[in-house]
């Protein structure tokens, strides 16, 4: 059972320019010939990740934390090892602050439930942004309705960037909670999160940062960021579906009640009452997604070996290339800020062609393109569109895939001319 180099892309040295051709060899799916331009939705997964999961299934499949035999110990060790990998990856102070969830959505719901119900009261203000994903809106709407709190949304300017003047005004009103995404999945906007967190903390707010689109694509340091909670999903960062992370500052997590109750999250259960387990297990009730968490650990290894600065540099190059290429297409509207201030996400619309028609035509060319509202309906309403087409990139994306997208767009324009 050796896995020491499992996460290492062949020959990769941290933060050297990415060797995309070598990286692509780790992703068998590219043998199908697809151009995969939907990594903001979910990423592909390298052999190192599926291999780590398969190894669990084939060599030490068992439940964790509960059994005394050897394979169960092995499973527990592998499962817990991911916590330290993730801690180091986002520079949290302690593994006690790393809670496994199913993903960003569950992480945010956990906070809305276990922190929100204790801390949000009648008349309190919650500040969100128009760039937020539904998963960072709906849990707060439910909480606000239940508590009689209210929500204000920071708007965007014409470049698709958050209006910091309006944010500052809202902070004057003393919000209890500020929650926003570091990177917008719909437009790719990279928000000035450090400044925003600092301002929000100064105003006395608790701050949750939705890191679903930032963690996979750029270096993240939660302590430098200064937020109280940080949520992300493994499946967008080369890991499997079903495993994600909630980071929470220890004192906040300590003060919170459990989110779900049952096995594993308890210390002792008596008929008269129960004492809860220590952090982080207090929030991990029931049998966990063991293989998925192990897979997530392998994904973190893989990304760490590449180096997140190199990952960002590669995506910036592809994004600049795509931005240029798409700017040249007649009748195409690009949404959001210029490449230097956006992640590897390009959202656009074509005159006279609905994004779904474009996506269907692209699909005929094996180009996987997202069309829709990107779980950001308030933003779509704000932009005055029902849907956009979106191309998004990752460590394995090649310029040639962008060229294929442009080819599909031209083909759509020919058909619809």
């Amino acid at each position: 059972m050796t896995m020491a180099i499992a996460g290492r892309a062949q020959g990769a040295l941290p933060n050297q320019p990415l060797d995309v051709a070598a990286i692509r060899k780790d992703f068998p799916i590219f043998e199908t010939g697809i151009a995969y331009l939907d990594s903001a939705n979910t990423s592909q997964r390298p052999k190192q990740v599926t291999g780590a999961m398969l190894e669990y299934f084939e060599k030490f499949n068992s439940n964790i934390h509960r059994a005394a035999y050897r394979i169960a110990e092995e499973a527990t060790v592998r499962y817990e090892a991911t916590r330290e990998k993730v801690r180091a990856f986002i520079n949290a102070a302690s593994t006690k602050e790393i809670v496994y969830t199913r993903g960003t959505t569950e992480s945010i719901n956990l906070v809305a439930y276990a922190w929100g119900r204790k801390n949000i009261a009648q008349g309190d203000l919650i500040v969100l942004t128009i760039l937020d994903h539904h998963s960072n809106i709906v849990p707060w709407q439910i909480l606000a309705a239940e508590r009689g709190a209210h929500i204000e949304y920071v708007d965007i300017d014409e470049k698709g960037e958050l209006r910091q003047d309006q944010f500052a005004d809202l902070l004057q009103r003393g919000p209890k909670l500020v929650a926003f995404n570091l990177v917008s999945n719909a437009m790719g906007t990279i928000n000035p999160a450090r400044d925003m967190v600092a301002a929000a903390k100064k105003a006395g707010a608790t701050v949750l940062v939705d890191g679903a689109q930032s963690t996979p694509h750029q270096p993240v340091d939660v302590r430098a960021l200064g937020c109280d909670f940080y949520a992300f999903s493994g499946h967008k960062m080369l890991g499997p579906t079903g495993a994600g992370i909630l980071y929470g500052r220890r004192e906040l997590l300590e003060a919170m009640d459990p989110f779900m109750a049952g096995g594993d999250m308890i210390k002792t259960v008596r008929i008269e009452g129960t004492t809860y387990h220590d952090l982080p297990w207090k929030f991990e009730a029931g049998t966990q997604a063991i293989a998925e968490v192990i897979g997530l650990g392998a994904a973190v290894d893989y990304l760490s070996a590449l180096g997140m600065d190199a990952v960002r540099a590669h995506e910036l190059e592809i994004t600049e290339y795509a931005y240029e290429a798409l700017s040249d297409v007649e009748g195409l509207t690009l949404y959001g800020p210029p490449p230097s201030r956006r992640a590897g996400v390009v959202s656009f619309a074509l005159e006279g062609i609905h994004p779904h028609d474009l996506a269907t035509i692209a699909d005929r060319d094996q180009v996987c393109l997202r069309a829709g509202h990107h779980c950001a309906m308030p933003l779509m309403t704000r932009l005055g569109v029902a849907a956009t087409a979106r191309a998004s990139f990752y460590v394995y994306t090649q310029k040639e895939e962008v060229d294929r997208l442009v080819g599909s767009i031209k083909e759509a324009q020919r058909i619809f001319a």
Partner: protein
Amino acid sequence: MSAAADDQFYREYILDHYKNPRNYGRLEHPDITHEEDNPLCGDVVGMDFRVEDGVISDIRFHGRGCAISQASASLLTERLKGLSLDEAKKINKDDVLGELGIDISPARIKCALLSLKVLKVGAYGLAGDDEE
């Protein structure tokens, strides 16, 4: 090159119905009016009906969205005009898909059947069952 496949899907008459929709617009004082949307892709289709002696004497549709949803609505209005309500009631999902005459992927079925939903829910007050 995939042009053949595309052209099969986006057949000339479908594109024609999309670009030059039949019976497009609104009726004044319609006897029945109903609108449905498909929030997932933002397609909207609404229909206005004039009914005389149990027969659909006039019909208009309005909306926006992808070629499949709009062409399907346009085709359906052509078929509905002059039909009795009883006959219109019998139109089903297979009729609508058959009229489009193309293979529709599961992801796009909702687009194709949005206008049928308008007909059913609006004109007959049937529960909005998702035709999938």
